[in-house]
């Protein structure tokens, strides 16, 4: 059982979380094309390397957050709030 550092709850067993996969930016629905949209829906980098993923702490604080995890060792090197929340914080100073 790997241990996942939640930005709010610290280290917890991975079973407490729902991994939501590689973090992606949602295309602008006004201008998106089928190719772009379905790439967003389906295509993954699936690297054997460090990847940025979104996880949801289902059995804990119920917060979404982003981690950098190595898909070979399962080591996790960073854990932070979702990008949108960071942008909001910055915008509010």
């Amino acid at each position: 059982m790997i241990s996942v550092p939640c930005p709010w709850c610290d280290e917890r067993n991975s079973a407490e979380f729902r991994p939501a996969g590689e973090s992606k930016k949602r295309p602008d629905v006004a201008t998106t094309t089928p190719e772009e949209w379905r790439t967003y829906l389906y295509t993954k980098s699936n690297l054997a390397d460090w990847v940025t993923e979104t996880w949801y702490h289902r059995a804990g604080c119920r917060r979404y957050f982003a981690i950098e995890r190595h898909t070979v060792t399962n080591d996790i090197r960073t854990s932070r709030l979702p990008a949108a929340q960071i942008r909001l914080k910055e915008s509010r100073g």
Partner: protein
Amino acid sequence: MAESRRLTPQPGEVIDRSSPITFRWEGDSYQGFTGDTIVSALAANGVDIFSRSFKYKKPRGVLSATFHDPNCTVQVDDEPNVRGAHRQLQTGMVVSPENVWPSLKFDARSANQVVGRFLSAGFYYKTFMKPAKLWPVYQKILGRFAAGGITRADAEHGYYDKRYIHVDVCVAGGGPAGMAAAITAADAGKSVLLVEEEYDLGGHLRYGSADELAALARLRAQVATHDNIEVMTNSVVTARYDMNWIAVIQRQPGISVKGHEIHERLCKVRTGTLVVAAGLIERPYVFEGNDLAGVMLSTAVRRMINLYGVLPGSRAVVLTANPEGDACVDNLIRVGASVTVVDARTGGNVVRAKGGKRVKSVELADGRTIECDLVVTAIGWTAPVPLLNMAGDRPVYDKTAARFFPTDRVAANVLVAGALTGDGTTSELIAHGAAIGAQAAGSPVDVTALARVAHPEMYRSTTHGIVDYSEDVSSKDMVAAKKEGYDSIELVKRYTTVTMGPSQGKLESVNAVAIMAEAHGVKDLNEIGTTVWRPPYVPITLGALGGRGFENTRFSPIQPWHEAHMARPLVAGDWIRPEHYGNPAAEVTNVRTNVGLIDVTPLGKLDLRGADVPRLLNLLYVNKWLKLPVGGVRYGVMCAEDGVVMDDGVTGRLSEHHYMMTTTSSGAATVWEWVENWLQTEHPEWEVHCTPVTTGYASINVAGPRSRQLLRRLVENVDLSNEAFPYMTVRQGTVAGIADCFMWRIGFTGELSFEIHVPAAYGLHVWERLMDSGQDLGIGAFGVEAQRIMRLEKGHFIVGQDTDGLTVGYGADLDWCIKLDKDDFAGKPELVWQSQRSNYQRLVALQPVDPTVVPAEASQLVEGTKSIVGRVTSSRMSPTLNRSICLGYVEPRLATPGTVVTCQLPDRSRVQLTVMNGLAHVDPDGSRMKV
């Protein structure tokens, strides 16, 4: 029964001679002592043979006298594959040999020994190919040779549980090094878990010299003084997973729960540091006859003599290449056995052992043949490296010391102590363990590495013999496999099954590697490498892994009433719901004519507050929400980003900035996470607070023409008239004296109906008051089945039944609901593109031409012999129309009302269905529910 082989009391013996135990073996009654293992007790009674080998059915006796002795696996009562050389004797045990047919003394299949030469490894790959239809017959015969014990369909599950442990240091192995490591770590104030496979701490000291026994006593005393050391004996660290997640199996922990003895307990340990102090395992020698009963490892002999006071044989030949072998010679002489020493260090060697049921003589390299009843080998060691392997290490072979050693590739939070790292005296081992323990505690210490003492490389003699005892694989089999091209250790393992058996390669692996090296003509075992050790280090029962069942079961506050009224329980995920109360059709009719109550508490409810809720709803649902007035209720459908229908329900506006969203019962959790996802990762700037209140309210749907009449008797401060409280609106008020209820007028059943949401603790109270007050109105409860029938009569689809993982919005007849002129909403792009296509199947209402036929749900709509043009997704007999009705999907060209389609039923008969106009079978214009 043969003569007793029990010796006079031995120093350090673990049996209690004052406490005899009676048990049964092969139907006969035997006696042993408390502290005996099954095998030591039988051996004391003169029993030599405990099993028959897997393939050739040869008689097998004690080899290592440890848990992983491949020859001592027995059946105990209804427990298969018990390690007889480890499991302690218990009063009344019924023990029987496994893998014998008809009996241990004579096994008919031992004829295989004669035809063995034709049964080379993997022979079954080379025959039985034709005729194919005969293979099942061959397969049955092969099955006869399956090893192992028996299970019973009616065997007791027994009691198993689990435990989490958090410690600073976990020590695997309670020998001198492990004990010393635990003590120093504990001295440094760390919490320590000390795990030992045997029943007592001590490792090899337990069957050692007087000095070793004295050292053991001192170590045990020190361990006992630390209350920050938890000692687990008869327990094993079975695996190390990422981030030092450690599995420890505690066998028969001696804990009684509700009259059950816990059989095994799985402990899941998160430890700062794992100290591996697993010691060494003595390695068998490969030579002809090495699997005869009476051919033993030196440590097995010492265990039998010193721990159990059993004489393993009186005329012994000991092949020794190390001090432990010499100690074994001393032990044998001490107990009066005649011993012939064959010293491998001066060129002595064993060529082959001969005998029948037990070894009778042994042929030596110098040409001598010696009559004997015991052949002992002490030719070297296997380093038990699986835990290190699981921690990323790939141990390296050292020719000088003739065994594998760990490297620095092992994970940083895993340390290795004791004999795994080198050789030393008792005090040197203790010193090394102590230093590693200090290191584990974070103290900066210089660890003096243990020396690697030279040891002769001895794997195979000049003859071929058994490498894997539990699989009956010989060195000859391996050489043949190599020649056939199965030349890597992994391939030969898979082809011959060497190391794949119940002893998991603990005894065989290094011999297997050495045989491969020999076959390849390479001198360095590293060129062959080792196989990757996989968890668990020792087998774990399914019971321990499963532990206690924690499957959640959710009940509505009204459950006591349902049970009292014989509701048939329906398992709906976590929820237990009333399917019906005896007659669903009558329940339907009652709702259509009088008034009925259904408990819809599991309906998902999300309390949404804040100024931006309308924007959230507009984003989640395919329809529009910006103009919903206070007191208004609207039905909405959610699609995922791929346009697939995800959930539906009604949402009402209770006040300016307060909304209540309902979801399907099964979708409640998913929708909540979906909402949070949008709020947290896309629109954190929005002012919305979302709180799940599904079970904060008991939800009761009051449906039927007389529902208003009923509610007027119990509802305060709400005008229930159609004018004041019209269809698709919500009101808050007091019901049966309970304030803070809200109710909305919706029509899932198609009747005039009010869905009342009551603070949960009062759910039963309100339900009972409603039932009580409605007697004269013919009130009755209805269950999920009646509700399903009524919604089908009304043509409302059920997400997940009338839609599937590919049903994109328009396919579910949602054209009226989807608003593409909204700037944005979940799944919009896919719906836009779908709206420009027409090649998707349509959801339609269907009615069988023969009104008495109810097609099974999932029956396929077909054209010709096999072309599928749609399917039935919902199907019931309608009590209201007194005919069968369906929902289903058809190809667009068949979606025109009036089209007749063919449906193939499960019995392959075919019936005609008519495509209807609109989805509703009953009251299409909804007049009944809007009164």
